[in-house]
């Protein structure tokens, strides 16, 4: 199945990836090749088959709602590219 250049740009936007024009072209070919391999899935008649999201049956796990130590502010900020006053520093929102 072929994927269009416009679709590649749309998906890149959804994935928050700024691609060069050359990269868009490359991905258009690569993704089309891959989709050709996997598209037979979409044509299978699987009416009535239950989907599996998790292969080993488990039920929800609950625990007592008690206060426990978590990541300290110091550790949480340790890998921050930029920080200020104990917070993550980011540029302005919007253009």
């Amino acid at each position, binding site marked *: 199945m072929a994927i269009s250049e416009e679709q590649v740009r749309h998906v890149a936007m*959804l994935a928050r990836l700024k691609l060069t024009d050359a990269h868009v072209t490359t991905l258009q070919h690569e993704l089309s090749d891959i989709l050709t391999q996997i598209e037979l899935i979409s044509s299978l008649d699987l009416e009535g088959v239950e989907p599996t999201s998790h292969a080993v049956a488990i039920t929800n796990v609950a625990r007592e709602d008690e206060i426990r130590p978590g990541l300290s502010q110091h550790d949480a900020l340790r890998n921050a590219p930029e920080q200020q006053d104990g917070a*993550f520093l980011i540029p302005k929102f919007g253009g």
Partner: protein
Amino acid sequence: MTLDLSSLTAPQVRDAIAAKEITAAEAVAAAYARIERVEGGVHAFNQLTPELANAAAARIDAMVAAGEELPPLAGVPVAFKDNMNLIGTRTTCSSKILANYESVYDCTAVRRMLDAGAVPVGKCNMDEFAFGSSTENSAFGVTHNPWDLDRVPGGSSGGSAAAVSAGMAVLTLGSDTGGSIRQPGALTGTVAMKPTYGRVSRYGIVAFASSLDQIGPFSKTVEECAMALNVICGKDPMDATSVERPAEDFTATLGEGVRGLRVGVVTDLLELEGCDPAVRAQVLKAADTFASLGAEVGEAQLPATQYGLPAYYIIGPAEASSNLARFDGIRYGYRVPDAEDVMDLYMRSRAEGFGPESIRRIMLGTYALSAGYYDAYYGQAQKVRTLIIRDFARAFADYDVLLTPTSPTTAFKIGEKATDPVAMYLSDVYTIPVNLAGIPAVSIPCGLVDGLPVGLQLMGAHFAESTLLRAAAAFEAESAFDMTPPIARTTAAV
């Protein structure tokens, strides 16, 4: 220093330390001496951790001096795939986007290994974020197969596999989402196991596909694999998908043999077009070995697994695209220095920080989950998963263990498949159905073809690890292959 770790197993190292024949410090020194000699050619490591190793060894040697009983992996040099957090190390996932990321907590499986006395010598190279089957997709360079430095070690846990194969660590941990432990295990002639989904906590491993990921060990012998499982398995409150089970000693039944065990050769998978006939022949020979040991060998079919590869290349990337959304340049990881606003920061930090295969998978997964395509791809793939689980359930009604090759070919040349993603994906055709079904499987060496190791995959029902390891141990004892690669045999510098 005459100590040669490549000829010692984990229990031998521990027992020698307990008997005061060697010290843990000497075991560490031997590991680094081997690394010094072969790592230049192999490049199994992203980071060496001599300070952590020396400190851990000193603790073991102090226990010996104090006459304390030693834990099961005391003084055993180990290494971890670089997607597992360990305080005092970087956890890079072999990605530029995490190149400087310092671990701020410990992965549970890693912590359990260290609490069992293991000594961490380093963090192992991998395909970026575990996306790949060759360890070529690393931002820090390719790992080479110790059997032939022009060939790949498999992937994505190629560094962990190569480190054990070349004798630079006695045990390592990898992670397996579609074959990333077993396939490099096969290509390097090591014992490599993916446990049942939920056996081992995933806490502290950087997630690829959360419904498929599982941590497991690499070792030279089946006994060591069982010992490592004893250490890393078990419920962890930090991972709600880890499963509560009665404690098992996986070493206890290793010697019981395979008499009466029902072994099924998966014939429809053996006949796949891409399977090297020489690999197929080795697997059929292995089946004969099982028969000669008293197993009841028959034929099994898994017809729905033909859809395993496409289902995996929807589910895996879909979950990955979601998991990798966290790498946005805000809280950690690479950030472009000159972003105009937050959107620009996201878009360029991610595009510059992720390598080509990561971008490919994020794009594929985002597409498969996007409006209008979700039902046709992701929904269908989840239904295929049900069919594959049913196939296995039927086969395990007749058989205790199923056999396939681990990989359709032996180790391929570096660069051979690097520009063809589809050809690369076919490397995992035998391993992927196991992840989709959540069952355990182990790859063990079953001979050489043209001087390169062939892996035999043994698959079992959920939580049947003991049965798999018992079968693997019987085969290993009977076949007695020497899986020491040439690089680990020679004494000259490489």
